[in-house]
């Protein structure tokens, strides 16, 4: 907007308006007002005002990117204030609009000490610009370094380009270290060196300082001419001139450029297909063998490329087709499909003529299938491992895995069979012997286990598990002898156990010896010393208390016998995580004495309940604890532990399963309808989870439940349940459980009321339970008469019409 005509205003008015425009940052208007004022009279304050308005306006337009206008405005300002210092910004505007001569002039006039740090970079920049534009030299006095060393530098570059190295080197020697051309000297030397030793030349480039105008160029070379090839992203970001230089140096032609263009497109697209195609299309340039290997590996991610692959590199054998497909399915996590294709691979291998057949490869694939299946479908893993060992019996790991899997599936017969086969192949293998010892012990084949432990100690005298097993066996015999009143024989067993623990590291042994001494009443001091020793070795606290109580019970002594020497745990005692984990191990070892174990744990239950609340147990800690407590039948403690675990890990299924398992005392048919429903929900939560341990347990429990129902009803509910509302099922199941658990006299009364005249007293227990289930159904409105007729028609001695 043009300001209102100033000629009609008074000077005072104009001055006020100019000041006001300045305050409002309207510098264009202010300039006009000051110009008008100066036309009337050349007052110094108005000249200063105009100079200031020019200056402010210059910055204002520069902010809008109008650098040409900004330089003119600044020049106007400088004419009115010749003493004003030249700001860096002005130099920047001049550079942007290409007024290099003016910059050179400014540089020539300004002494170095007056320059800002940024301005100090200018000489090198101007020196480089002068190498391309000789006219700039006219702005510098002949003695200025830019002018002085210009010709020598140009000569060096020209000689370098013309491969006259001696002349180039001679010229470079004449450029002093303080010259603005000093980095061009380093650059040329580095490029000459690169021809002999690329790495050394690149190393020299690194020496160019980060504040140098040549640094950007040096970095570009560092990224693009290195031995391992150019950085692709940066390569495609280069200007035409730099691209030309890099292509020249690296010897790239159009073919390489096209390859890099394809590569860039493929790499940025993130598409396996584009990458695959880029390699296939450029296989000649990339190398046929390397391209084939690349594409073969890429087929795992991009199996549809197989046709293009075979077209380019020749047909793949059927085995390779299946192998790639299997690896592809594995990469997607589809293990059953992967196993299917691995199976096809085996079929292909097995079809080969006998002399070409490679049984070891087949065995390895079977083992691979077992690895894939061992979590979700252990039965398949067992089958695959069996087949693998038939083909290649010389694989210890497979025996170990197979035996463990058989144990997981509760198939102790198969576990035993494979153990024997494994030991036949590897009779002195510590891992197999140890596993065999543990399996034998779990099968209660103690003689066999002891013999294996002895063999193990012969091979590996420091094997602590074998040693512990033998010590426990001697202590067990000693207990039996003592309870039978043969204290001398018990003592002999103890001595044998002691011979296995000469360094007195076994807490249970010391405690048992102490208790025997205490019971013998001969040497109270020795008894006290031994008990204290055992307590100390066990670390005091929960584990020591359990060991002492358990050993006391096993020897048939009153539980309070050693209390005088070792007091009970305090009422507020809380065990730490490590103690609880230690206790679980002790419980596992004490499994053979179930009744005494239960009694010992019952005494510790308050401490355990407190401890489960406070100890920081992980999910795995809980799971291992649950398994041991379930296996040893410690349902009360298992229930306490599982309830507490549900509070700590409310989203996991394990605690729910083990709480229900404890409530049913391990018998699936005792499960209430409500618990069955809870367990189903827990099982649903497990779907998709990697850890299938709990899933397998729940599945087995449900299977057991189904089988128990089958026993009663021969193949499930025999009657027509089409009308059954699924929502009623939990309530019916709950009622069935109530009836099953109630005292027989009460049950008889209810059945007699529902089905009068049934001869219940002679009925076997399972038959009675069947009738109880019918009664429950009847209570929910089902026609019991019809059902009874159907049961009567079933061919089962349990439910013969006579018995009813």
């Amino acid at each position, binding site marked *: 907007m043009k300001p209102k005509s100033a000629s009609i205003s008074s000077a005072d008015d104009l001055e006020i308006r100019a000041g006001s425009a300045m305050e409002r940052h309207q510098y264009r208007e202010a300039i006009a007002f000051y110009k008008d004022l100066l036309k009337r009279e050349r007052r110094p304050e108005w000249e200063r005002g105009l100079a200031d308005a020019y200056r402010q306006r210059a910055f204002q337009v520069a902010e809008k990117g109008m650098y040409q206008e900004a330089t003119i405005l600044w020049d106007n300002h400088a004419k009115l204030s010749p003493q004003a210092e030249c700001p*860096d910004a002005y130099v*920047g505007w001049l*550079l*942007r609009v290409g007024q290099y001569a003016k910059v050179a002039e400014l540089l020539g006039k300004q002494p170095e000490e007056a320059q800002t740090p*940024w301005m100090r*970079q*200018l000489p090198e*920049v101007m020196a*480089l*610009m002068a*190498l391309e534009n000789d006219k700039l030299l006219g702005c510098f006095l002949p003695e200025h370094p830019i002018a002085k060393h210009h010709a020598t530098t140009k000569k060096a*570059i*020209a000689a*370098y*380009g013309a*491969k006259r190295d001696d002349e180039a080197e001679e010229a470079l020697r004449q450029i002093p270290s303080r010259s603005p051309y000093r980095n*061009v000297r380093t650059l040329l030397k580095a*490029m000459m060196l690169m*021809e002999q030793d*690329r790495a050394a*030349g690149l190393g020299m480039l690194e020496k160019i300082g980060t504040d140098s*105008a040549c*640094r*950007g*160029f040096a970095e*570009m070379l560092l990224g693009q001419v290195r*031995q*391992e*090839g*150019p950085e*692709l992203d940066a390569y495609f970001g280069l*200007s035409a*001139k*730099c691209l*030309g*230089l890099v292509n*020249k*140096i*690296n*010897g790239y032609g159009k073919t390489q450029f096209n*390859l*890099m263009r394809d*590569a860039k497109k*493929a*790499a940025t697209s993130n598409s396996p297909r584009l990458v695959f195609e*880029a*390699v296939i299309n450029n296989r000649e*340039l*990339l*190398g046929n063998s*390397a391209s084939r290997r*690349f594409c073969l*590996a890429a087929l795992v*991610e991009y199996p549809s490329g197989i046709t293009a692959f075979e077209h380019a590199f020749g047909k793949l054998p059927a085995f390779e087709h299946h*192998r790639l497909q299997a*690896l592809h399915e594995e990469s997607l996590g589809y293990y059953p499909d992967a196993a299917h294709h691995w199976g096809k691979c085996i079929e292909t291998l097995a079809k080969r003529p006998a002399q070409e057949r490679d049984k070891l*490869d087949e065995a*390895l*694939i079977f083992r*691979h299938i077992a690895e894939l299946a061992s979590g979700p479908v252990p039965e398949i893993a067992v089958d695959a491992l069996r087949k693998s060992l038939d083909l290649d019996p010389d694989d210890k790991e497979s025996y170990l895995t197979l035996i463990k899997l058989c144990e997981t599936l509760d198939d102790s017969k198969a576990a035993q069979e494979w153990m024997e086969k494994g030991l036949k192949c590897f009779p002195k293998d510590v891992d197999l012997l140890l596993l065999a010892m543990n399996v034998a012990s779990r099968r209660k084949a103690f003689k066999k286990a002891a013999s294996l432990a002895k063999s193990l100690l012969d091979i590996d005298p420091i094997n602590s598990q074998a040693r512990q097993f033998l010590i426990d066996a001697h202590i067990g015999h000693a207990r039996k002898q003592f309870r039978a009143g043969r204290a001398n024989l018990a003592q002999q067993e103890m001595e044998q156990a002691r011979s296995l623990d000469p360094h007195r590291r076994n807490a249970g042994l010391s405690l048992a010896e102490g208790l025997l001494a205490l019971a013998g009443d001969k040497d109270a001091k020795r008894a006290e010393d031994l008990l204290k020793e055992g307590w100390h070795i066990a670390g005091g606290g929960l584990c020591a208390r359990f060991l002492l109580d358990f050993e006391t019970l096993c020897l048939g002594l009153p539980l309070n016998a050693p209390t005088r020497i070792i007091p009970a745990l305090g009422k507020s005692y809380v065990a730490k995580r490590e103690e609880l984990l230690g206790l679980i191990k002790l419980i596992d070892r004490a499994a053979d004495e179930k009744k005494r174990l239960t009694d010992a744990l019952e005494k510790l239950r308050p401490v355990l309940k407190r401890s489960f609340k406070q100890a920081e147990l992980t999910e795995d800690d809980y799971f291992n604890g649950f398994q041991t407590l379930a296996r040893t039948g410690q349902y009360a403690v298992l229930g306490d532990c599982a309830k507490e675990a549900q509070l700590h890990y409310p989203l996991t299924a394990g605690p729910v399963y083990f709480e229900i398992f404890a409530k049913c005392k391990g018998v699936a048919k005792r499960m209430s309808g409500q618990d069955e429903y809870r367990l189903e929900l827990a099982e649903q939560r497990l779907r998709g989870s990697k850890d299938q341990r709990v899933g397998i347990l729940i599945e087995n429990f449900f299977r057991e439940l189904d089988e128990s129902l089958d026993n009663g009803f021969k193949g499930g509910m025999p009657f027509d349940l089409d009308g059954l509302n699924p929502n009623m099922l939990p309530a019916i199941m709950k009622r069935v459980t109530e009836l099953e658990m109630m005292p027989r006299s009460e049950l008889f009364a209810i059945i007699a009321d529902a089905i009068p005249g049934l001869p219940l007293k002679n009925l076997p227990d399972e038959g009675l339970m069947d009738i109880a289930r019918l009664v429950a159904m009847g209570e929910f409105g089902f026609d019991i008469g019809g059902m009874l007729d159907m049961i009567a028609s079933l061919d089962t001695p349990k439910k013969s019409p006579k018995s009813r």
Partner: protein
Amino acid sequence: MQTPFEILDVADDANDDAVKKAYLNKVREYPPEHSAEAFQRIRGAFELIQTDKQRRKYRLFHLEKPDFQYLLRQSLRPSVFQRPDANTLLGALTEGVIDGLLKSQAIE
């Protein structure tokens, strides 16, 4: 991505002895105390293909993840440094100089 055979510099059908020999040679070349990272790679490769069974397993169940950049770099490796002429060099050298300077001014 290099295969363990390439890392140890042995043929794909090398036997146990050849693999072990190659491994020991590599360890002598890159001892753990001087080249810890290289040694780790060498050790890892050796553990993958040490025995016949391991080599078979590697061939059956392992495919190195295809590394496109590696493949490209291998084929685009410049063999000889070719000297540019003076004009190409000067053009590229002076091209971004002003921009670089102005960029540094903007940062300040």
